């Protein structure tokens, strides 16, 4: 475990309803995420995993409850949402690279426009990040020229180029060919080893087991069970979790 136990995100009684109270996507989530933690969220589809992850950087507006990020209540109306998002990198299931820009532009547009970095510096930084994921030779390619695994690696380093405090992963390997899953998971493992705080929605149980410091099992908009990977996978308590693990393992 990480020695630094500082809480970076604190979520209290988070609720997200659609159509009044008809659909409860999130029904009272409370949890703390500490610096350096790798929190893996698992659960059946429709359990609210993605909604929870997306409310952390307010891509979804919660109906009620509070999220505190580095001591500041970000659900308050006065929050600078754009500033918040600069500190939270996000990786999507469908990569969402910008198809009209080269890989290098994809990675430098935000640091240049938002951090005000000079172009050369931003590019140098982007190239060293690309080297970390073994794609420095594709700097001037366009996203359509890359494979799915390459696109997702680029999406990860695009978020990293902003030097975020936390990385959010929304099913990063679900849209990939099976043989490309490994290369993306490797990048994520290295990131975790480097001490990045990560919140990751995934169906890769192997990854959850190996890299996760904590696993959250969600069902019907609630946290059903929350524990270390060993306890979750070897000694599950809840019946719903047992049934789920039986199906996926």
């Amino acid at each position, binding site marked *: 475990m990480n020695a630094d136990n500082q809480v970076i995100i604190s979520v209290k009684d988070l609720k997200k309803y659609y159509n009044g109270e008809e659909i409860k996507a999130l029904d009272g989530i409370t949890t703390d995420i500490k610096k350096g933690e790798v929190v893996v969220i698992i659960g059946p589809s429709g359990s609210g995993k993605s909604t929870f992850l997306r409310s952390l*950087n307010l*891509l979804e*507006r919660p109906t009620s409850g509070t999220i505190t990020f580095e001591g500041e209540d970000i659900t308050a*109306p006065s929050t600078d949402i*754009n*500033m918040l*998002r*600069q500190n*939270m*990198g*996000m990786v*999507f299931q*469908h990569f*969402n*690279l*910008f*198809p*009209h820009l080269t890989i290098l532009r994809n990675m430098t*547009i*935000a640091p240049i*426009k*938002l951090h005000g970095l000079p172009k050369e510096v931003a590019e140098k930084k982007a190239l060293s990040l690309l080297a970390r994921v073994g794609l420095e030779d594709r700097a001037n390619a*366009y996203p*359509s*020229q890359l494979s799915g695994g390459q696109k997702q690696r680029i999406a990860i380093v*695009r*978020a990293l180029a*902003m030097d975020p405090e936390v990385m959010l992963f929304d099913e990063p390997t679900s849209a990939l060919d099976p043989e490309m899953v490994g290369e993306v998971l490797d990048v994520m493992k290295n990131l975790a080893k480097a001490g990045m705080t990560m919140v990751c929605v995934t169906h890769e149980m192997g990854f959850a087991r190996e890299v996760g410091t904590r696993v959250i099992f969600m069902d019907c908009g609630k946290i059903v069970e929350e524990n270390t990977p060993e306890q979750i996978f070897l000694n599950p308590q809840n019946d719903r979790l047992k049934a789920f693990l039986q199906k996926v393992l």
Partner: protein
Amino acid sequence: MIKSRFCKQCGTKITGDGSVCPKCNSALPELVIPDAGKKANQIFILGLLSILLSFVPVVGIVLAALCFFFSNKELKLVSSAGKARTGRKLAGIGLALSIFGTIYVFLLLSVGNIPLWALNTGNKIAKWAVGIPADFENNFITDSRYNYIVKGLGITFEVTVFAALLGVVLGVVVALIRSSYDTLKDEMRSGFGNWLLTLLNKICGIYLTVIRGTPVVVQLMIAYFVIFVASNNKVLVAVLAFGINSGAYVAEIIRGGIASVDKGQFEAGRSLGFGYVRTMAFIIIPQAFKTVLPSLANEFIVLIKETSVSGYIGLQELTKGGDIIRSRTYSAFMPLLAVAAIYLIIVMFFSKLVSILERRLKNSER
């Protein structure tokens, strides 16, 4: 079929069918056949000559036939040379013109001595054909009547260009308001900004409904005879009326373009920390622009043709100019066909431009 080809980078002759040049190691360009260009040029010139000489009986026909004969053989060989094809097309036009020219000259020669069999049917055609030069002179030369066409064309361009500019500006503003409303109404806190955006959205909605629900001629006449009744500047009124009309269509085109960009792009931009405006400017608009540009160009072409109804407010643009000539000379054939031909040429020119543009944009995706 292809015997040998050349690397376009270093000029080396390539034998065999490799895809990389052995000398300069660059990827090989498309296949080039020696002398193909020269032969294509000859066919092209032959086709051109058949047009130029089409007024000389028989010669034009012979030239065109020669062009067809040669190109038929060459086309199989010169699979990539477009110039030979163009030459063939020219020869086609030349052939048609030559046949017409030959008949015409024949009629001219026999006009004093028309055989009896031709009197009933041929007589009319012959008289009409013989009368063409006089008709042309009467319609376009006498009293400098071509000025109606030339000046009219100028005004048509003036109205179209400024109306298009106004239309694009209006359209972009309306489209941005409407798509901002669609994406921002949930996100915004209630307050003045929210209230203002809702109001603007309502106004834009009414604008689109009214403008797209009424004919442009009626809008033009309302603008001239009701709203700007005090103004005598017909060009300005036409620009305003057509611009406001075009703006409604442009707005829907642009809104469609913005909506066609994947929602994930917007989220990716926002998740990096870009605000709404910057996400639109850096990420959404550049992508929407590509899909929208051909439709926008088409809207411009429609606008050119639509300005032909300006005659309703007495604006002397191209169509009205032709109509004035008709009312002076009592002969409709020449002026109206001339006007139609001019519109056709302009529209064909811009259509060609649009298709080139579309191809370019498609290529830049890769």
